[in-house]
């Protein structure tokens, strides 16, 4: 932990998360990824929305902003566009990013603006006590689906890819080392990167859905995750009920703020046509 100590606001700890909540594990993974990429601390901005997960920004010793529910990406877009020198990392929940913030999410993907978004995906609205989210599996028991959730969840990776994101990966709290690596690669990508980080909410999801305690929920992650390479060799039947982790997509496309800077250079006669 020593390496990431300087990235933590020690005085803000202990954090507010419930015992066994996976958010702390993801936070540590993110900090290790930042360390791995050797981002300049003072040029790094952490932007979060609202939710249990989004409280993470408060524990991180950077320029940090805890915005409004669903709006981390617009704020982040303003920050990055106004000052492209800044490394901008967004922390968001599954509800924050795909319910109220779904539109901002697909538009950030489309613009391919150089922001790395880590979705703390616990399949539920944790902060408000367990309502279903757009990533809750069908059948989920939530306080607003007492008889089982009728809707289908998004395939967030497919959505991000269709919307234009140039790096999409999935990891879990259990696979914390791999997750660090996936986030680091997302940061390295010059464009909009999405890391779907699966985590456990023992209180607002686990209990109602009989998932057992925190350790059992992490065991579930271990048992149901399939590495992308392995998945490629598996039949659909074998993959049923499982989910794929690893780097799911990588592509090239012009990055928004770089294009903008080129336009400015062109207009100011400082650069050629680009």
């Amino acid at each position: 932990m020593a390496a990431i100590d300087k990235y933590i606001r020690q005085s803000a700890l202990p954090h507010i998360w419930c015992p066994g909540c996976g958010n702390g594990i993801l936070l540590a993974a993110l900090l290790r990824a930042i360390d791995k990429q050797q981002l300049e601390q003072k040029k790094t901005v952490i932007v979060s929305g609202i939710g249990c997960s989004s409280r993470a920004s408060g524990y991180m010793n950077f320029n940090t902003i805890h915005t409004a529910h669903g709006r981390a990406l617009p704020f982040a877009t303003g920050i990055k566009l106004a000052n492209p020198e800044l490394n901008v990392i967004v922390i968001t929940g599954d509800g924050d990013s795909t319910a109220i913030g779904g539109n901002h999410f697909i538009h950030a993907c489309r613009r391919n603006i150089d922001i790395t978004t880590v979705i703390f995906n616990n399949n539920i609205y944790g902060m408000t006590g367990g309502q279903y989210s757009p990533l809750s599996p069908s059948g989920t028991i939530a306080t607003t689906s007492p008889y089982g959730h009728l809707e289908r969840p998004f395939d967030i990776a497919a959505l991000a890819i269709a919307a234009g994101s140039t790096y999409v990966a999935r990891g879990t709290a259990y696979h914390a080392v791999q997750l660090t690596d996936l986030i680091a690669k997302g940061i390295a990508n010059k464009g909009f990167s999405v890391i779907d980080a699966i985590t456990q909410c023992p209180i607002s999801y686990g209990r109602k859905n009989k998932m057992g305690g925190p350790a059992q929920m992490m065991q579930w992650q271990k048992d149901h995750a399939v590495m992308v390479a392995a998945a490629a060799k598996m039949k659909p039947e074998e993959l049923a009920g499982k989910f794929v982790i690893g780097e799911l997509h990588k592509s090239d496309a012009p990055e928004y703020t770089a294009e903008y800077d080129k336009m400015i250079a062109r207009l100011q006669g400082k650069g050629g046509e680009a």
Partner: protein
Amino acid sequence: MALTINKKFCKGCGICVAFCPKQVLELDELGKVYEKAPEACISCGQCELRCPDFAIQVIKPAKEAAK
């Protein structure tokens, strides 16, 4: 001792206990983690990696030895 435990931060979730490959850890009656079998610890770092509360730090013996 290879582990530094911050009991103030520990919330007793049991994750470290469950995933320690050597059954080193256990919760005490106040629900805080402690090293039941410190001698068994192989400093693998799993507990630090998965503790959600920044309550465990594993001091790598390699480093210790170098000092």
